[in-house]
């Protein structure tokens, strides 16, 4: 499927895209309209991801303690390998000008620097070492049956919400 898909978003759609792109790497605009069950592709990969998270013990508070105490290579190995595999994949995609399975051009949004990456990064780091979880493992811990993590998760939602509330007043 090599048919070109033209991007001609309306002004309204563009404003909405910009709102979603704000402070997030994970948006990408597509002009394709798909039924909801096309999203099952992402759920399927999520399931594999969740299994890996638990089986490699990435969701464990203990492993994060080991990492920050520099007493185990495990987490550095996981993240390092993931970055190398991701890096090679992105290079290959760019080199071959690969398109998505629907024939769209692949686009990776550029990340602009702002003070948030420093201040927010430090705050997240503090929280990561306390909870032993970044957002991904929070979902995995709940799924794996650590029910009390629901409280941590709701608190993380509250943190995100308060960031949204205070956003204009915070240095960026």
């Amino acid at each position, binding site marked *: 499927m090599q048919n070109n898909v033209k991007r001609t978003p309306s002004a309204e759609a563009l404003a909405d895209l910009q709102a979603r792109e704000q402070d997030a790497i994970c948006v990408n605009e597509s002009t394709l309209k798909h039924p909801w069950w096309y999203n099952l592709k992402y759920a399927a990969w999520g399931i594999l991801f969740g299994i890996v998270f638990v089986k490699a013990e990435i969701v464990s508070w203990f492993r994060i303690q080991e990492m920050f105490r520099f007493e185990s290579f495990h987490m550095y190995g996981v993240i390092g390998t993931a970055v190398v595999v991701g890096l090679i994949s992105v290079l290959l995609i760019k080199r071959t000008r690969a398109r998505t399975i629907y024939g769209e051009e692949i686009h990776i949004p550029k990340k602009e620097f702002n003070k948030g990456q420093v201040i927010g990064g430090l705050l997240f780091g503090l929280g990561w070492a306390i909870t032993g979880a970044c957002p991904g493992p929070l979902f995995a811990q709940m*799924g794996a049956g650590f029910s009390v993590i629901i409280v941590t998760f709701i608190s993380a939602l509250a943190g995100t919400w308060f960031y949204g509330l205070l956003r204009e007043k915070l240095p960026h």
Partner: protein
Amino acid sequence: MLDAIKQPWPWYVAGALIGLTVPYLLLVGNKTFGISSSLRHLCAACLPANIKFFKYDWKKEAWNLFFVGGIAVGALIAARFLSNPDPLVLAEPTAEYLASKGITDTSALQPAEIFSWSNLFTVRGLIFFIVGGFLVGFGTRYAGGCTSGHAIMGLSSLQWPSLVATCCFMVGGIVMTWFILPYLLTL
């Protein structure tokens, strides 16, 4: 075969599979890997409260919610059917240090001495669940991403702001682990 799967998976298997998420998401739908945004989409879906940051069409990012839903289901499958019958093998110095703080139960992935409902209304619960969770949610959004969005996706696409963010994650974590947690664990 099943016995091998039940053992903890080595870092290179996990790292490779996690890294492959980057091309998978790009190729099946032009999506860039990032998990913490799901928290923002949930806020936008459930409690936008007329806040500008949450006023957008979150349904366009529904894929992200399917992905994190998948993570929970995958974790359930792993815990239910593939779980390792042996206790966690912890690095010797970490185990000794944690034991000195009264954390000795390594039978599960999470220490029962901290992450249990009986701690909910204690100082320990307040810090480890409420404060910790809040910092994760607030910090990742302020930083514009978490370990997946910055450390993996951002570094994979050679974006230097993501390198700055990743270094700050590590600095925050190290400061907490070495200078603050030793005190918090005594509470």
